[in-house]
């Protein structure tokens, strides 16, 4: 849809502060009398702690307090088994045993170094493959098989065994992907202060999910949620990551704020951020596919195993997403899929843009390419033969029907492959490669569909509040958070569109749990799709009140009135008065309430827990990518030359912001595909900063030919769908498929770094 604001490239509402350096990020937020906190990490990844001696640390000049588990007033364990302070045992390298608070950073560092931890080293489960063996040690004694609670989900559709019996060819493949770090450029930072005007504590910081932090800090402090206030500073990127780590930091700083009566700040170094923040979950993914000779996929069986790490509060959600998407966007009648997750004595998995999507899309889109090659079919023709279309049911049984859930992939594959000249290049690159000794060219295709929003992962409810001030200016509050994705701008556009006012009237206010309403976490691409609906709800309620005021002011029935173009207008367009005058009249003499809360929830999904058949997501977004690469066979270096990409996302409320989200996600996917790898040795993290963990630079970005496809989504605000994550999924399998086209080598593990490309396996240092 195209409105006054919706569908337009409005400029970011927070651009000025950010280009002038005036935006206050967490490390820039200072409080009077603040103390600096420094953590004492587990000296080895898995230890039994026999003694913690803080005496020497306390004697260091400037030290105000040193906290351990003994100082925790409430529960030491938070959601997902995370300890505020490791007590008897440290289960991974990022566990914190004590935290020192001091007048200066230097004194806090010296004190942290002076804390003496006595310990015995324990055997550990250092990898997913180790945890998948029988009879191994238990990370948590009450979970002897290391199977993370509530993470097993079966998906059943049709009769897979019968499908395999009808197949002419049955293929089995195993894929593996490791950790990925969110690598936001701003490291985590929080400040916790005794509350100014009431009992309790105020938490400030770069936080993705303030209500989660509030809940857990309250529990650690033995207080009610109402006694903890969480206020966001500017957030320097998060991508799912500023969650568990800032929760732990805030809880520890709150304990120190209680001990000292002063504000306590903790700013992580990059190395600390790598050590204690969540990562994308590793997955082992075993696929078995049955094929008929004509290229029809007859049956699919998958077994997915996720590495959770030492603690877990996300795999129960991401595993469900994984199993629901394991079959990819194909019409497969017979599917059996199972997903599990394991504890290990390692860094832990959490939310990272895409959640489990990039993992399963890598496996399924590589598998589909392998199937096409096995049958001697062109990968485009194979996908066109099998891809979902109108009238089909997807893996969880939802029906694709125009106006409800769009099925645009067949058209998108045809059009985008045409634009990218896929067929001609498929042949001409082969001719080129026969002539070229080292430099080989390849072209690869990948296709995805992605459930947008929380779906069956949880109850989705979003909040917003809009207040019109007496002078006609407008305050907008959302229960969701801005982390750089552009939500403030998009929500402002939705509010201005619905209210019929100039967007310049709107000031988007800070996230503050003492003001905003609990909207749950800002995750799962729901900020626009669900949060935008709450904004729309609030705006429409307010507009109704304004029109009631307009009726009193003009004597014209409100059904014949509208607010448009910043004025009260009569149907047909005649301007009756300015917005300012209308607001003034509503305030005095009418005394109307020009404040409204908006709330939106699609309600619970209805899903059979034995089969995952049901209305898993409200809607799905779609994507197609064609990637051209050059491989240098002498070094193993892959250069991505050009990407042609198309996404279907309903209405793009702000096409420029949608582009930025999708291309930004594409770059993260490029890093995942080519070089992002967290190396570990026996639970120790060897890659801990940007010198060892490489993320894409300006020099790595290819030419991108970008296309948006519209559709109708009756559920989204003005037809919008959530798109924050879709862009990260496709590039890894498309590069792998292009690599196979170029050199005939099939890689089933990420990243495609030099050694994997050159010799087919990873090297360890």
């Amino acid at each position, binding site marked *: 849809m195209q409105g006054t604001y919706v569908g337009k490239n409005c400029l970011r509402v927070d651009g000025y502060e950010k280009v002038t350096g005036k935006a206050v990020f967490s490390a820039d937020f200072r409080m009077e009398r603040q103390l600096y906190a420094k953590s004492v990490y587990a000296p080895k990844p898995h230890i039994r702690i026999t003694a913690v001696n803080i005496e020497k640390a306390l004697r260091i000049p400037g030290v105000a307090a040193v906290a351990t588990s003994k100082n925790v007033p409430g529960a030491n364990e938070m959601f997902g088994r995370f300890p505020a302070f490791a007590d008897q045992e440290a289960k991974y390298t990022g566990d914190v045993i004590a935290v020192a608070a001091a007048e200066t950073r230097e004194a806090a560092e010296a004190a942290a170094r002076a804390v003496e931890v006595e310990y015995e080293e324990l055997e550990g489960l250092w990898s997913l493959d180790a945890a998948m063996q029988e009879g191994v040690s238990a990370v948590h004694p009450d979970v002897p098989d290391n199977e993370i609670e509530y993470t097993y989900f079966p998906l059943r559709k049709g009769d897979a065994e019968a499908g395999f019996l009808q197949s002419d060819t049955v293929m089995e493949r195993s894929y593996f992907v490791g950790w990925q770090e969110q690598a936001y*450029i701003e490291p985590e930072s929080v400040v916790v202060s005794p509350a100014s005007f009431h009992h309790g504590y105020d938490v400030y910081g770069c936080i993705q999910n303030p209500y989660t932090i509030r809940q857990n800090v309250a529990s650690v402090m033995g207080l009610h949620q109402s006694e903890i206030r969480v206020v966001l500073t500017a957030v320097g990127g998060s991508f799912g990551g500023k969650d568990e780590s800032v929760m732990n930091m805030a809880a520890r700083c709150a304990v120190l704020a209680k001990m000292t009566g002063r504000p306590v700040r903790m700013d992580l170094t*990059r190395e600390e951020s790598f050590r204690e923040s969540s990562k994308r979950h590793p997955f082992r993914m075993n696929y078995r596919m049955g094929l008929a000779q004509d290229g029809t996929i007859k049956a699919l069986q998958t077994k997915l195993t996720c590495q959770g790490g030492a603690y877990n509060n996300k795999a129960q959600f991401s595993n469900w997403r994984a199993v629901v998407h394991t079959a990819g966007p194909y019409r497969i009648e017979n599917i059996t899929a199972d997903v599990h997750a394991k504890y290990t004595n390692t860094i832990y998995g959490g939310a990272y843009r895409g959640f489990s999507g990039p993992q399963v899309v890598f496996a399924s889109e590589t598998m589909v390419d392998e199937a096409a090659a096995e049958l001697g079919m062109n990968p485009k023709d194979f996908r066109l033969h099998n891809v979902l279309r109108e009238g089909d049911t997807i893996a969880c049984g939802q029906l694709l029907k125009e106006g409800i859930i769009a099925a645009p992939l067949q058209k998108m594959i045809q059009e985008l492959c045409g634009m990218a000249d896929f067929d001609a290049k498929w042949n001409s690159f082969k001719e080129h490669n026969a002539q070229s000794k080292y430099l080989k060219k390849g072209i690869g295709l990948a296709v995805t569909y992605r459930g947008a929003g929380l779906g069956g992962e949880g109850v989705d409810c979003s909040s917003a509040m809009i207040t019109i001030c007496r002078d006609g200016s407008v305050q907008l509050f959302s229960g969701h958070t801005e982390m750089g994705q*552009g939500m403030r701008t998009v929500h402002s556009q939705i509010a201005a569109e619905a209210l019929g006012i100039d967007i310049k009237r709107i000031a988007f206010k800070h996230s503050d749990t003492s003001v905003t309403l609990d909207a749950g976490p800002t995750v799962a691409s729901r900020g626009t799709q669900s949060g935008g609906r709450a904004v729309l709800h609030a705006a429409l309620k307010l507009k109704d009140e304004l029109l009631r005021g307009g009726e009193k002011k003009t004597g014209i029935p409100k059904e014949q009135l509208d607010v448009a173009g910043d004025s009260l207008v009569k149907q047909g367009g005649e301007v009756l008065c300015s917005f300012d005058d209308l607001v003034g009249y509503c305030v005095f003499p009418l005394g109307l309430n020009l404040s409204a809360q908006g709330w939106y929830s699609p309600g619970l999904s209805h899903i059979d827990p034995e089969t995952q058949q049901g209305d898993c997501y409200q809607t799905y977004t779609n994507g197609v990518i064609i990637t051209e690469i050059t491989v240098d066979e002498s070094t193993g270096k892959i250069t991505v030359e050009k990407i042609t990409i198309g996404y279907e996302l309903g209405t793009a409320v702000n096409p420029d912001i949608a582009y930025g989200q999708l291309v930004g996600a594409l770059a993260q996917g490029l890093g995942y595909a080519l070089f992002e790898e967290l190396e570990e040795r026996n639970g120790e993290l060897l890659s801990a900063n940007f010198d060892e963990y490489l993320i894409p630079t300006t020099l790595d970005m290819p030419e991108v030919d970008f296309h948006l496809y519209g559709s109708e989504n009756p559920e989204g605000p003005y037809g919008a769908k959530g798109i924050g994550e879709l862009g990260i999924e496709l590039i890894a399998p498309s590069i792998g498929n292009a690599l196979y086209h170029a050199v005939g080598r099939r890689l089933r593990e990420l990243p495609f770094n030099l050694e994997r490309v050159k010799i087919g396996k990873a090297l360890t240092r």
Partner: protein
Amino acid sequence: MEHKENKTAVSMTVNGKHIQAEVLPETRLLDVLREELHLLGTKEGCSIGECGACTVLMNGRTVNACMVLAGSADGAEIMTIEGVCGPEGELHPIQQAFIDAGAVHCGFCTPGMIISTLSLLMKNPQPKDDQIQEALSGNLCRCTGYHQIFKAVRLASERMHRKE
């Protein structure tokens, strides 16, 4: 901890203002800017010179302020993001171009990106695409995928060229 005995005085010109500071041998230029002068627009992202969030101009050249000891900046002319605006606080064409091109997402890398762009356009007012990529290769951005930043640099270059 205070080691007054180890401190030495340095002076430098920061955004046109003459300043003096007492610094330890290990004090970095970044610490002087952020902690002494409260110029908080210069960010710290990695502390090892990889991310470029702390990029400032030192005697007209880009440096990572986390990798420059304050002592070695004695006598230098420094420009930070706070010095990029005009005297009345008006936006520099590069800053406006970053907003207009959608090149600002989370904003944490933005000050460093703008400083690197400023340095590029001072030396090379009409850079080619590969020169833009090269000039910004020391500034990591995790949000944008860089294309909107390239667009911002081209836009700034065009507008500054037209003005001249």
